[in-house]
Every structure is written in structure tokens, then in C-alpha cells.
């Protein structure tokens, strides 16, 4: 863990010093143990404040939408999931690859603060670090060592691309890739009968507070004006009623159909823990089954399934 941090700071400093980049996107550390946030470093001397710890989960690539307008060249650090998100922005022609310098970070999984809290380890906690295959929880005056596997984000357990698929320089050796089955939750829900499933999703969508964090964090959601903010045509009001929450989530999931890179950020940021990953993965599973394996974010030049076709396509309805 420490080695990666040194590399990050070294590379950041060198690109800024050499003028190869006029902005470095990394992560900074907040006062509390889980607070690792996107940091915008413009001078070499500030690179010391960069951090790398099990909480550096925010995807930095979406900030390029704003920063590339005012910066000549931006260097940034991308984990496996971040890189998929970056490729989706690339496929949507929202970023200019030439103006971006990518340091790839092979990632063996990050820690979910909610799981730390549920395990009751958060009281008085100062920091958490990977040391040799163990997770070290440091408090004011003592330490605890735990096995990391029960603290990883769910999305990390099913991560299929921990080694970044796009980079200019890789900052470490490739890590092992043995993802758990990612459609398990979807499979469970599919087993229920349709009204039972409706009640399940009705409960989830009723909790939505329409904060739009899922949309604003998503690398595949990069419209200049979102249809939900438009007043004409008026697709969505501001009332928190079930029917409008359903309309929003179903439409947004469908805008992601064939484009969602399954990075799990929407589910992470949702303040009321709506299982948005299951929505996106259902569409990924169906589109793969119907129209062939398509791994969004891995090959940006390959056309996503819903904007191409072949005459012999199967249909999920009776074609009389």
C-alpha cells in the first residue's frame, strides 16, 4: 500500500515539474478515517497531500468534462473500475484522449465504510490500511488486525477488470482476477413472482429522495442537460411520488442499457441504499443473453448493443 502511495506522489510531482501536465487528479485525505476525496493538484509542492488508502473509491474521470476546458493536459489515476468509466466517456466522445495522461492502478479491492460500521470497528477509528494480506485498524492507542475479505465493497468482490483496461503507465503489477458471480442478486430476484418483485422494487423506489447523486456520479451519464431537468417536454416533476421515482429509475437504467460499465458508483453514493446495481446488471445480463456478450467500457470502439442490430436477432416476444 505504502509503495503505491510513493509511486503516486512521485509520478504526480514529476509530471507537474516537467510541465507534462498542468493538473493532476488524485485523492486527498479528510479528517475522518473513511474520507478519501478527489483532489486537484496543480503545483508540485502540493503532491505531498495525495493519498492512497482503501477508501480512494471516487472515480476521477468524470471531472475531465469540466477540467479539460481549462487545462492543456490532465494526469489522473485510474483504478480498474475507473478505467472502464473513462472508456465510456471516451466512447461518448466527451473527453479528448490526447489531453489525458493515465496512470493505471491495479486494484485488489477497496473497503466499504458501512461494513466497517456494521462490524462496530468505527468508534474512535483513525485509519485503515492493508498490510501484508491483513487489514489494520488503527485507533488512538491500539490496533486491530482483520481479514479484509468481509470488508470489501460488494462491487469489488465481483470486479472483472481490477487491472485498468486503459492507461499510459501502469503503477504496479497486475493483480489476480477471480470475481464472484455478478448476476447472483439478479438471479434471486428473477426467481420471485412478478407481484412479489413489484413490491420489492416499490419499497426501494419509495425510499428515493430524488437527490440525483446516482446520475451525477455516473460516468455514462454525461449529458449537457438531463431530460429530467427540462421543463419542456416535462418528463419529471419535483414531487417525490412513487410513480415519478419509478419513471426516473427505469428510464435512467434504460439510458444505461448496453453502456453501463458496472462500476457500482451509483449504488455506493445512494444515500438510501437502493440496489441500483441490480437494475443495471439485469439489463447487462439480458442484453448479453439476447445479443451477445458486450463488455461496456472495455472496447470503446465497439458499438453498444442498442445502437446496432443484425437481421437475425432473437426477440423477447412472440414474432408471429
Amino acid at each position, binding site marked *: 500500500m505504502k509503495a503505491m502511495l510513493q509511486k503516486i506522489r512521485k509520478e504526480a510531482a514529476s509530471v507537474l515539474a516537467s510541465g507534462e501536465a498542468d493538473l493532476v487528479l488524485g485523492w486527498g485525505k479528510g479528517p475522518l478515517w473513511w474520507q478519501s476525496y478527489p483532489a486537484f493538484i496543480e503545483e508540485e509542492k502540493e503532491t505531498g497531500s495525495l493519498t492512497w488508502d482503501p477508501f480512494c473509491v471516487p472515480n476521477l474521470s468524470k471531472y475531465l468534462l469540466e477540467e479539460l476546458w481549462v487545462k492543456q493536459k490532465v494526469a489522473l489515476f485510474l483504478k480498474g473500475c475507473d478505467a472502464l468509466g473513462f472508456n465510456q466517456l471516451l466512447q461518448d466522445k466527451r473527453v479528448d484522449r490526447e489531453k489525458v495522461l493515465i496512470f493505471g492502478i491495479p486494484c485488489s479491492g477497496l473497503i466499504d465504510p458501512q461494513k466497517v460500521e456494521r462490524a462496530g470497528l468505527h468508534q474512535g477509528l483513525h485509519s485503515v490500511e492493508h498490510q501484508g494480506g491483513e487489514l489494520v485498524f488503527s485507533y488512538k492507542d491500539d490496533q486491530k488486525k482483520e481479514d479484509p475479505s468481509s470488508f470489501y465493497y460488494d462491487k469489488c468482490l465481483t470486479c472483472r477488470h481490477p487491472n485498468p483496461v486503459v492507461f499510459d503507465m501502469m503503477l504496479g503489477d497486475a493483480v489476480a482476477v477471480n470475481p464472484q458471480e455478478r448476476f447472483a442478486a439478479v438471479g434471486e430476484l428473477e426467481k420471485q413472482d412478478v407481484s412479489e418483485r413489484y413490491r420489492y422494487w416499490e419499497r426501494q423506489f419509495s425510499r428515493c429522495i430524488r437527490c440525483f447523486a446516482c446520475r451525477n456520479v455516473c460516468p455514462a451519464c454525461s449529458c449537457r442537460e438531463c431530460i429530467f431537468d427540462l421543463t419542456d417536454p416535462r418528463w419529471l416533476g419535483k414531487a417525490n411520488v412513487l410513480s415519478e421515482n*419509478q419513471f426516473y429509475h427505469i428510464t435512467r437504467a434504460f439510458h444505461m442499457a448496453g453502456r453501463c460499465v458496472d462500476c457500482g458508483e451509483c449504488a455506493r453514493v445512494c444515500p438510501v441504499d437502493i440496489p441500483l446495481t441490480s437494475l443495471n446488471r439485469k439489463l447487462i445480463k439480458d442484453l448479453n443473453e439476447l445479443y451477445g456478450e458486450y463488455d461496456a467500457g472495455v472496447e470503446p470502439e465497439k458499438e453498444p448493443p442498442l445502437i446496432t442490430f443484425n437481421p437475425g436477432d432473437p426477440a423477447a*416476444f412472440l414474432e408471429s
Partner: protein
Amino acid sequence: MSVVEEHHLFEPMIVAFCCNWCSYAGADLAGTGRMSYPANVRIVRVPCSSRVSPNFILRAFQRGADAVVVAGCHPGDCHYVSGNYHARRRFSALRRFLEFVGIETERFEIHWISASEGNKFAAIMKDVTDKIRVLGPNRKLRDVR
């Protein structure tokens, strides 16, 4: 109210998006052929089934439709060559996705109806109406305000 009575009173409202070149013309042919079908079906004309966006389907359910039908040309017959191919993929994914969030598949149907299949148009609309009359009103996704 017994099941039969309840069904008798309940008149489903069905929105059908029909493509101008094939299924809308098929509906016209059903008309010229005086092939009657239930008045519950209301047709919205679109140039091609590929013009029907999932937004309109969700909006129809939101505003009270008990079932939505999208009708287009038979694959290969599309006046715009590939419109229904895109529609086939899009609505295959949408149909399974709506079922996943709890909407019965009977409530969202897709049919390929050519300009010469007036009888098929009438038969499908009658069949959908009967099925939904049994299935009952759709309160899911509906805006109750």
C-alpha cells in the same frame, strides 16, 4: 364482486403505437374491412416503431394505460430498412426489464403487422383486450394524483 363481474365492469385502456407504413395501414385495412375490435384500443401514429421511445411507454403506464402495444413492420419489411430491427432489440430488453421491476409481460406487447394484415391487427387488439380484462387494471407505475 365475483371475478367475472369485476372483469365485466372493468374496461381496460390500451395504448397502441402503430408505425405509419405497416401496422397503422393494417389498422386502416381492418377499418375498410369492417373487422371490429374493442374500442378500448387507442392508436398513436408514429413514422416507425423505432420512433417509439421507452419514455412514451412508461408515460402511458404512468397516465393510466392498462397495457401498451407497439406494432411495426415485419423484420425485413421496414419502410426505413432497419427501424424495426432497432425496435426489436430495444423492446426485447425493455420487456424483460419491466417484468424485472414487476410489470406483467402481458401488459407490454410487441407485434409485427403488415399493411395487408388487417385481420391480424383486429385479432391482436381483441386478444390483448380480453387478456387484460382478465388480468385486471394496472395500478403499477400509475400516477394516482
